[in-house]
């Protein structure tokens, strides 16, 4: 187990804040996007891209790399923020995000954005695609691990559970699903739209090793991912309890911000609340 230093924790927290700020800037610039689910996943992306994943921005197709699938592809802004900050491409490439000549698509496209391991956007695919990747890594005796981030609303899709069953059958301990559980989806609170109660028990019943963490605690996320590496006979599901729109008071827990764009004033207010104005180069 890694014991994170105070400096490491504050550094990851600072990265998460900047991923939030960049996500909102990108969405504002494009005039379209999904801020709520990008903000809820900021610590998860920060920990994955700046601590956990064995990746090389200079060689994005390195065959032994760990893989990450953003199954909740509508949170593309936070993935682009992480990839750009990690050095896969220049952030300025997103200046014209949304224009037809911008390579980076509305939802992640593995053929157009370096570092995107799998095209996503239609919800539900990540777990089953992750099963295939994990099987491939095992056959090749590769140390490559596969990480899939799914949403809680996404878990309403049946294909998620088809993939979950297959992962358990093959005891894919090199597969980790992180579930961004923010209880808000497009139409409203998840517990009203289509309740997915007993989430942990559902995954356990499917044969997964399940742990629950605070999805905004970088320390808990790192510990969870560390523990996942010690599980050798099952796939692992880390249920990350999060707040949709986290970090921006007027966006938190409000389904309006699933897919709406802040005004200029709202963006400025949000950046102020995130406290990022002083770290322009950070």
């Amino acid at each position: 187990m890694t014991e994170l230093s105070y400096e490491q924790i504050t550094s990851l927290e600072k990265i998460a804040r900047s991923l939030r700020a960049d996500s909102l800037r990108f969405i504002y610039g494009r005039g379209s996007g999904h801020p709520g689910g990008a903000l809820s996943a900021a610590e998860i992306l920060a920990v994955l891209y700046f601590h956990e994943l064995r990746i090389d921005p200079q060689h994005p197709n390195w065959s032994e790399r760990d893989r990450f699938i953003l199954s909740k592809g509508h949170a593309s802004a936070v993935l682009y923020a992480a990839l750009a900050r990690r050095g896969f491409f220049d952030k300025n490439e997103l200046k014209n995000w949304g224009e037809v000549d911008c390579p980076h698509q509305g939802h992640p496209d593995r053929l157009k954005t370096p570092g995107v391991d799998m095209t996503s956007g239609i919800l539900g695919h990540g777990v089953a695609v992750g099963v295939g990747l994990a099987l491939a890594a095992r056959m090749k005796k590769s140390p490559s691990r596969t990480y899939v981030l799914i949403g809680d609303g996404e878990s309403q899709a049946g294909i998620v559970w088809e993939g979950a069953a297959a992962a358990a059958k093959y005891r894919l301990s090199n597969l980790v699903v992180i579930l961004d559980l923010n209880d808000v989806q497009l139409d409203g609170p998840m517990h009203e739209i289509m309740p997915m109660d007993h989430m942990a028990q559902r995954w356990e019943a499917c044969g997964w090793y399940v742990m629950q963490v605070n999805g905004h605690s970088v320390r808990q996320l790192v510990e969870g991912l560390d523990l996942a590496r010690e599980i050798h006979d099952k796939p692992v599901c880390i249920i990350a309890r999060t707040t949709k729109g986290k970090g921006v008071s007027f966006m938190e827990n409000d389904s309006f911000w699933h897919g709406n764009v802040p005004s200029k004033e709202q963006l400025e207010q949000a950046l102020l609340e995130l406290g990022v104005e002083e770290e322009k180069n950070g």
Partner: protein
Amino acid sequence: MAELSMREGYGRALADYGKMNPKVVAVDVDTSASTLSHFFAREHPERFFNVGIAEPCAVDVGVGLALGGYIPFVNAFAALLALRSLEQIRTCVCYANTNVKLAASYAGLSDFKDGPTHFAMTDIANMRALPNMNIIVPCDAAQAAAFVPLVAELVGPVYLRINRGSTLPVYQPGSALQIGKGILHRQGIDLTIVAAGSMVGRALLAAQELDKDGIHARVVEIHTIKPLDGEILLDAAKETGAIVTAEEHVRAGGLGGAVSELLAETYPIPIERVGIRDEFCPTGRNIEGLLDACGLSVAEIIFAARKVKKMKPGGTEKQ
């Protein structure tokens, strides 16, 4: 050999080819004893994955295997593969352009005794509309077997359409076979019958019958519906002036649709499409009888051939 089913030709070939190419893997959906991917499973158990009755999952698992550097053959019934997992195929196979091979078994009406729920009569149309997809329709067991290495070695998505039973044998093992290249089976000047899959053998029978009446039909096999061999079709259009298409698929969107679209834009000539009418087909007692009952008989091809020949400018039927 004549009695070998197309699925057995395919299944045995996949198992054999797997010995030479360690990258080939197979996924099935609790149908390996039907698709006959079980030959592969027996030979290469460490490279075979049965995900249960879950076609969307099977396709996505195949996608992951392809991303991991393998060449997955995803085996399932065509009706389910082409419809239940169509979104997976659209998004994760075609749009993401992953190297997945869809082995679509029990295609067309070939699952005659299970009835219309199990018929795949729109699958070519479903697949044809998707960018990046290659569609291959073998005509018999020997050709299905011969396509296995070609399909595996083509980089990109492939939909390989496999019938449950045997068809009239046409393909000579060892003869030339190339994805995207049609086969001229028989020369003729009065019209061309363009056929795919199980209808190739029937088209050749129809041509023999027409010959007796002094109508000389060319017979061209189009096994690759996409990308379509425009050259052989344009030559046929220019040299014979009329075309009949024949396929075990609805008339909309399949081979007949592809040929009509091509020639309407390049060299318009009379065309008749022999295919399944715009209705659901009944259950049958045997495949030959069911094909006959569903508008795919040799007589149907002959009727269409006479009709297009009459439609040719100045065309009148001989005899």
